[in-house]
């Protein structure tokens, strides 16, 4: 499997290199769907230029990256394109290895469950076979590398690619079972943008499952491991924050980075829900709705963790999807990360209900975004409502897709417990509904 992966990496790097050298690179790096005020490359360059001028990069309202990014790019600014291509490649390889190991674990569990006769008799169609699972890791890597969203994000040199790489490494370390590395990468991801904080719960659940510690709050072993993991995570986060303070000798970055993410002062249009909502909001209610929208990202963690505590990998997917949809400055790079996981749920295909509608709407919206932007900003014949409408539709389609996969997953689990062909009391074929 190394050969096809290498071939895939070569093809992906070639496509990106070709696009970097073409005139499209400048055009793409200015698209608001691909870059946001948080991760635009222009702003990184501006921050470094301000540092050269002797002004703090956080003095103005242009630069919102963390000090570690300044430090990192201070050395590799001349090789920026290679850095972003390598980040993409690293993400793809990390996801490849992670999904491969996960598949092995899944297959082993299925084997034990079959030997223990835990599945009903008519479920053979739902079992996963090695033949079907063989190409899934390669498909995951392909879905990430050859996704147009990822390619656009890389060519625009948006630091979203670096964030994705960190999250992919976090997933890899979690699947491999290394709690310390998982905590460090999760702390790095949280340090970059606050939202990966919600991935703490699925990572914890996965590691508990892997160590055969039952998730029972009455048991001390559960609390012991939880405290250990939390301590490692919070410790790494504190170390990173203090390191950032010593780099620039000021705490300015806290308000410029985290204050910016949470309070949403910049209303540059993007593919998310926040910008137009807060552009049209009265001052009186602004704080209330900021709190509502930010809590909206975080408060699905606990209910989802309770429902999916036996399936933490799917929970990671759900959490990343919810972050990408509801975060304050989403870009297509965030979407590309959770879309990379879709081949891992190929076996759910028979239970997906809306996949045709969702894919058509996503394609249509992706095509309409630049058109309506041009009509609003350059031609002047449309106004902001057109672009806003497409934003809404895009987000509805994403929500529909994620909830569809959730439904399919839950339904498959139900069938694995109760049998595939269900009969009613009188023997006729039954239908399943959610009640």
């Amino acid at each position: 499997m190394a050969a096809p992966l290498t071939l895939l990496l070569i093809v992906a790097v070639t496509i990106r290199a070709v696009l970097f050298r073409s005139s499209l690179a400048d055009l793409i790096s200015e698209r608001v769907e691909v870059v946001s005020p948080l991760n635009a490359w222009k702003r990184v360059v501006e921050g470094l230029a301000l540092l050269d001028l002797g002004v703090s990069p956080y003095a103005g309202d242009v630069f919102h990256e963390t000090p570690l990014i300044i430090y990192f790019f201070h050395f590799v600014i001349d090789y920026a394109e290679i850095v972003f291509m390598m980040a993409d490649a690293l993400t793809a390889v990390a996801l490849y290895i992670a999904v491969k190991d996960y598949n092995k674990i899944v297959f082993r569990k299925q084997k034990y469950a079959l030997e223990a006769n835990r599945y009903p008799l008519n479920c053979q169609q739902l079992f996963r076979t090695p033949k079907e699972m063989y190409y899934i890791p390669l498909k995951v890597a392909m879905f990430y590398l050859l996704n147009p969203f990822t390619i656009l994000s890389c060519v625009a040199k948006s630091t979203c690619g670096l964030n994705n790489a960190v999250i992919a490494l976090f997933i890899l370390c979690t699947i491999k079972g290394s709690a310390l590395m998982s905590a460090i990468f999760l702390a790095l991801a949280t340090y970059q943008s606050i939202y990966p904080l919600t991935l703490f719960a699925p990572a914890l659940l996965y590691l508990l499952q892997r160590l055969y510690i039952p998730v029972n709050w009455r048991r001390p072993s559960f609390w012991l491991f939880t405290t250990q993991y939390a301590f490692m995570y919070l410790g790494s986060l504190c170390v990173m924050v203090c390191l950032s303070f010593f780099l620039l000798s000021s705490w300015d970055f806290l308000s410029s980075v985290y204050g910016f993410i949470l309070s949403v002062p910049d209303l540059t249009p993007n593919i998310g829900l926040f910008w137009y909502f807060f552009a049209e909001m009265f001052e009186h209610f602004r704080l209330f709705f900021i709190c509502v929208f930010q809590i909206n990202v975080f408060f699905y963690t606990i209910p989802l963790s309770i429902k999916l505590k036996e399936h933490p990998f799917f929970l990671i997917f759900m959490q990343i999807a919810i972050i990408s949809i509801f975060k304050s400055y989403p870009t297509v790079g965030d979407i590309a990360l959770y879309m990379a996981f879709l081949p891992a749920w190929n076996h759910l295909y028979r239970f997906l209900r809306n996949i045709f509608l969702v894919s058509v709407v996503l394609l249509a919206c992706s095509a309409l975004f630049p058109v309506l932007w041009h009509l609003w900003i350059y031609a002047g014949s449309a106004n902001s409502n057109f672009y806003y409408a497409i934003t809404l539709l895009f987000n509805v389609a994403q929500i529909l897709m994620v909830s569809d996969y959730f439904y399919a997953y839950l339904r498959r689990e139900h069938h694995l417990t109760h049998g595939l062909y269900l009969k009613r009391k009188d023997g006729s074929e039954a239908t399943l509904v959610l009640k």
Partner: protein
Amino acid sequence: MPNLYDSYVQVNILVLYATHCFPTKCIFSVSHYRLFPTSLGQVISKFSVRELHISFTQGYRRTMQWGQTFLPSPPGAELWVWFQDTVTDVDVTWKELTNVLSGIFCASLNFIDSTNTVQPSASFKPLGVGNVTDQRFLRYAVLPREVVCTENLTPWKKAGYTSDLCQDWQCKSTAWELRQTLNVVFDLHSSGQSKREWSLFKMFSRTLTEACPLASSSKVDVTDNPQGELFELSPATPMLSQAVVLGNRRTYSQRVETCCALYFTESAMCQATGCRRGRSTPWCTTTTRTGPSPSSCWTPCPGTCVSTSHTLTVTSKGRDNKPSYIHYQPSKDRLRPHLLEMLVQLPPNSVIEVTVQFERALLKWTEYTPDPNHGFYVGSSVISALVPSVVAMDTNSTQERPLFSSFFPCKEESSYFMQVYTEPLLVNLPTPDFSMPYNVICLTCTVVAVGYGFLYNFLTSTFQVEEPSPGLAKRLANIICRLRGVPLL
């Protein structure tokens, strides 16, 4: 005021304070209010102002045709103040001062706040005797959108054209200086006269009958237009003299010289497509024949535009001209504007272009002006230069006329200080739809609710086998059975 078609109006008020006046002696005595407007005097003493410059300008000055103005000022209202070093909180004092001045001059100076106030470090020096250069006590603000109206001249009712106030009754040394200028350009052709003649009566509907009652002397200076035809002055004046001023031999008799030896002209341009990105390009054409002159160029940019300093380029004659000193203060959203000051050498006979790229921001609904599609004004750039002076004026005739000498260099110096302003720019920002706040809130909350609804449904419900619903007849029968208390069908 006569009809000012295609014209230019500029009002300047300048109050200077001499530093060799000890604080205890600088309390205004009542007698001085004969010359100095009471309102201004009270303001100056209350807010411990060392120097106060206000100007109101409307219209675009065609410098190439009309010549350089005596006191350059940007379009709109400009206010810059040097405070005394006894002031503890300059920002609070500045805010109070602008509010009071807004009342005195009947102008909207109360719109000056932290979003359009800057503290330039190199471009503005005190013009009085004082040599203070502590930039903490300097504040500068410009409102490009202000219009000029006759109510702005309210304090003039109390004061004359110029007045020096003395420390002691013998008037040995100057304590305060007040200069008020009104600069108006008339278009005589529009008044319907075919003959090229003009008179004070035609312009102002009255003649000069007597000297100013408050002043010790009044003079009217008239100059000629060396490129145009000569004209005769009626009534004729006995004093006729010639001198070389600013490089040109001019005949003047009590003339107010219009400087036509332009050292440099300024312009500004905003290049953009659409209302997303743009480049602000103030440029300056030098016509000096002598060597390069150092100049400080200051470019403001409002907080509504996100300006990037790494895109700053300065080119002259097609080549890069790196500034030797850059002072850049990036803007903070809704708190303070951009400030960019550079020290650039201006080579002679060249065009210098300064380019900065910016991005236009989408503002909150409440932050737009009532006419948002008009655009937002970007204030003028300032170029302060040390221009090499060619030849000075004959100093003999200017000793008695301090106003005249302050306008033109009459000392044998190697260079003199000159300040030029560009025109302001009008930037079109993208606007949201102002009729839609409720709709937007509803629709966005609907999308969030759709997400919440799906997840809530899957989290709280379980799969169950669906019982088919019986036909209508059976359902009605079941209702009756329930009422009767018998088992259902």
